[in-house]
């Protein structure tokens, strides 16, 4: 019964979305207030209906209703409650329902918090958002309906993939979807502005919170996913340049570019057409991501529900929205003329450089991801593009970005003088060089990657510190002023510093990781990177829905015991899959990572262990970046009505 109500609510939501896509648009064109006002309650209702539908599906999972095909395929009564709930989006159909729920949530957010938007723009934004919603409702109802029943329900389900039964993985999709779908909101704003024929500073301010929110959620989602891969997959890799990972990384890069170019629109009324284009492309990459994950055109470790029919449908949606938006973009180029004037050396120019670096970096990831497909179709070559290519082709852009960032972040708008800023930054640069040189001296004859990464990290962190300190002006009372700076300033410094921390972590981990693989008898010990590891015992343990082989190691340093580590090897009988649970000993400067393998024929156990320098910095930096985003998002100027007084009421320049 509840399932049918959920199904019905989903169909109703689709109908509401269809109405919301048309009526407010006509209303805005004809200036009929009643028709425009339709958008707000419609957005709310659409959200409530979708939420009800999602709740119904969740209920089916919680109560293990195996008459539902989806629950049978992805759940089991023995599964812990947490993973019954996260199982709702641990599959294609459920994750699409979550996706569309977030589409309607963002639409709702505009209806609820967009009181300061001009009515016609608001109506158009909500209408475009409803078009996106309608397309996905249709996709779900026609190709991936989660509410299908089974003719003869089985007694129990087939269990969720054990790899997915982990908090890190269970919670990263919602964040990623909040990010992907957040970009649908900037897309809607861009298209609405094009229809409206007006892109100005106020528009820049309205879209920025949504861009920022999308970017923050993508940051968290990617960070969580990579952290999960690090501790769960058993060899401590954190990024594999897999097509699906790239699919989330490309929108992140474009969102970062958009974030910065929207500042130029907001503050200087320039780069308008570029920003609109980025907003369109960013959502395009989100859609391509959905397409890559769900169509199976590119083989990937994460691909789930690969089905050509769904792929074609998604490609159709992507093509329709992109072509529509780009046509509109071409037709309305004239409304996006820049106002601001600035010299070659200015904040504006550096932000243009930032955008070029990020956009081209994204393009490199894109072409690397798609190349196997292109090469096969166009040149009849069957080949692979993997991590070594991306490491070589992508890294230089990030290095360039890191080098320029601290200087660019301090340049003045309009016309800047480099000399004064360089003088302020000299201590930061000297510190960074010293740290890089120290790292260079301490390692013997290895690649320059590690020292370079530490240099960049220190340069970014120290540069951000100098930046925020310089904002306090001169004279006495600078410390007091530091606490009163706008949150956006803090957000900028924290996020840029976070980028530096992540860069240092990635470089250190890639340059100085140590690995050891060996057979170990119980009671034996060995040494890795100056740490001693002793295998104390191994025993079997019964978990809720798995059987585990659990080993106990003692970690010691200089003969002193510092930790007990218990890696596990689990077998999930229902899904017939083993997983490893690595044991980690975290510290500020390093992780020790131990995995227990199979028992060996001649006695003893296969043991794999790693020394991972600065491992936590990768995710620490991601957290800092997200925190910086939140600080910026909570800045006062987004809470007060942006441009409310400045704008004449509802007179679009047509």
């Amino acid at each position: 019964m509840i399932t049918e109500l959920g199904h019905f609510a989903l169909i109703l939501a689709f109908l509401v979305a269809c109405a919301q896509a048309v009526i407010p648009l006509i209303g805005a064109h004809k200036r009929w207030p009643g028709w425009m006002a339709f958008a707000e309650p419609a957005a709310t209702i659409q959200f409530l209906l979708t939420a009800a539908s999602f709740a119904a599906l969740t209920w089916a999972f919680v109560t293990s209703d195996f008459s539902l095909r989806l629950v049978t395929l992805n759940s089991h009564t023995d599964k812990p409650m947490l993973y019954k709930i996260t199982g709702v989006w641990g599959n294609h159909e459920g994750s699409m329902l979550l996706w569309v729920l977030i589409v309607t949530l963002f639409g709702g957010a505009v209806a609820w918090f967009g009181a300061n938007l001009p009515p016609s723009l608001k109506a158009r934004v909500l209408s475009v958002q409803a078009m996106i919603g309608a397309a996905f409702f249709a996709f779900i109802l026609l190709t991936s309906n989660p509410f299908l029943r089974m003719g003869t329900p089985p007694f129990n389900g087939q269990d969720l993939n054990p790899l997915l039964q982990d908090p890190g993985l269970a919670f990263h999709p919602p964040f990623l979807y909040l990010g992907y779908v957040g970009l649908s909101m900037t897309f809607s704003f861009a298209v609405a502005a094009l229809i409206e024929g007006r892109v100005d500073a106020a528009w820049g301010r309205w879209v920025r919170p949504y861009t920022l929110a999308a970017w923050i959620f993508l940051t968290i989602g990617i960070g969580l996913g990579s952290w999960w891969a690090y501790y769960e997959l058993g060899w401590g890799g954190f990024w594999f340049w897999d097509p699906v990972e790239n699919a989330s990384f490309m929108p992140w890069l474009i969102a970062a570019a958009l974030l910065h170019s929207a500042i130029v629109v907001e503050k200087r009324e320039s780069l308008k057409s570029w920003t609109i284009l980025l907003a369109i492309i960013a959502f395009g990459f989100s859609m391509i991501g959905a397409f890559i994950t769900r169509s199976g055109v590119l083989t990937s470790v994460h691909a789930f529900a690969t089905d050509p029919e769904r792929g074609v449908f998604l490609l159709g949606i992507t093509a329709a929205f992109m072509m529509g938006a780009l046509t509109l973009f071409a037709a309305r180029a004239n409304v996006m003329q820049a106002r601001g004037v600035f010299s070659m050396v200015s904040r504006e120019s550096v932000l243009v450089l930032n955008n070029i670096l990020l956009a081209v970096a994204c393009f490199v990831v894109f072409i690397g991801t798609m190349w196997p497909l292109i090469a096969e179709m166009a040149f009849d070559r069957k080949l692979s593009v993997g991590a070594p290519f991306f490491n070589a082709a992508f890294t230089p852009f990030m290095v360039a970005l890191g080098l320029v960032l601290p200087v660019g972040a301090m340049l003045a708008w309009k016309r800047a003088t480099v000399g004064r800023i360089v003088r302020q930054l000299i201590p930061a640069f000297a510190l960074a060089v010293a740290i890089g040189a120290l790292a260079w001296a301490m390692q013997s004859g290895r690649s320059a990657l590690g020292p370079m990464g530490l240099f960049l990290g220190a340069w970014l962190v120290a540069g951000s510190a100098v930046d925020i300190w310089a904002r306090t002006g001169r004279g006495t009372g600078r410390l007091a002023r530091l606490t009163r700076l706008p949150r956006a300033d803090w957000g900028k410094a924290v996020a840029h510093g976070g980028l530096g921390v992540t860069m240092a972590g990635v470089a250190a981990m890639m340059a100085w990781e140590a690995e050891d693989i060996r057979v170990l008898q119980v009671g034996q010990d060995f040494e890795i990177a100056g740490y001693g590891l002793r295998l104390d015992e191994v025993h079997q343990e019964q978990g809720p829905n798995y059987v585990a082989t659990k080993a106990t190691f003692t970690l010691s340093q200089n003969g002193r015991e510092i930790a007990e580590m218990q890696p596990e090897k689990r077998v999930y009988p229902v899904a017939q899959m083993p997983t490893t649970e690595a044991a980690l000993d975290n510290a500020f400067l390093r992780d020790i990572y131990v995995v227990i393998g199979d028992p060996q024929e001649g006695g003893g156990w296969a043991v794999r262990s790693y020394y991972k320098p600065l491992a936590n910095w990768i995710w620490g930096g991601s957290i800092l970046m997200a925190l910086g985003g939140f600080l910026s998002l909570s800045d006062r100027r987004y809470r007060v009505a942006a441009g409310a007084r400045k704008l004449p009421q509802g007179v679009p320049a047509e």
Partner: protein
Amino acid sequence: MKRLFLVLCVITAPAFAVQPDEILDNPVLEDRARDISAGLRCLVCRNESIDDSNAELARDLRLLVRERLVVGDTNEEVVDFVVDRYGEYVLLKPRTGGSNLLLWMAGPIMLGAGLLMAGIYLRGRAQTPERAVARLSEAEERRLREILDD
């Protein structure tokens, strides 16, 4: 197909790739073997190198790589040997020859184009000030005259 992948890869996936018994006694050769295998793709897996994969085939390839190294092949010879047998599909880092030049040059070309366009745009921005500020539109001129006449 999906089942096949699951069987071949995921069944043993998170356990172990390189097994202790595969490791060569000579640490220099072993290091080279690891380097080479990180760049070779496991053919039955999804985008994993043979160094990371635990599929049987990946193990066979790892052993093959080590065999060739012990015989005295250089790194290039080992890679060529594997490519001759399995095609360039096994290379995770595509070669730069032929159409792949496009792949490798795509980034630098786009960067050059982007910088060029940005340069032109920025020059334009830097040179517009006088005109943009100085001239009013016809309507504005009229309105200005009206105000002045009043």
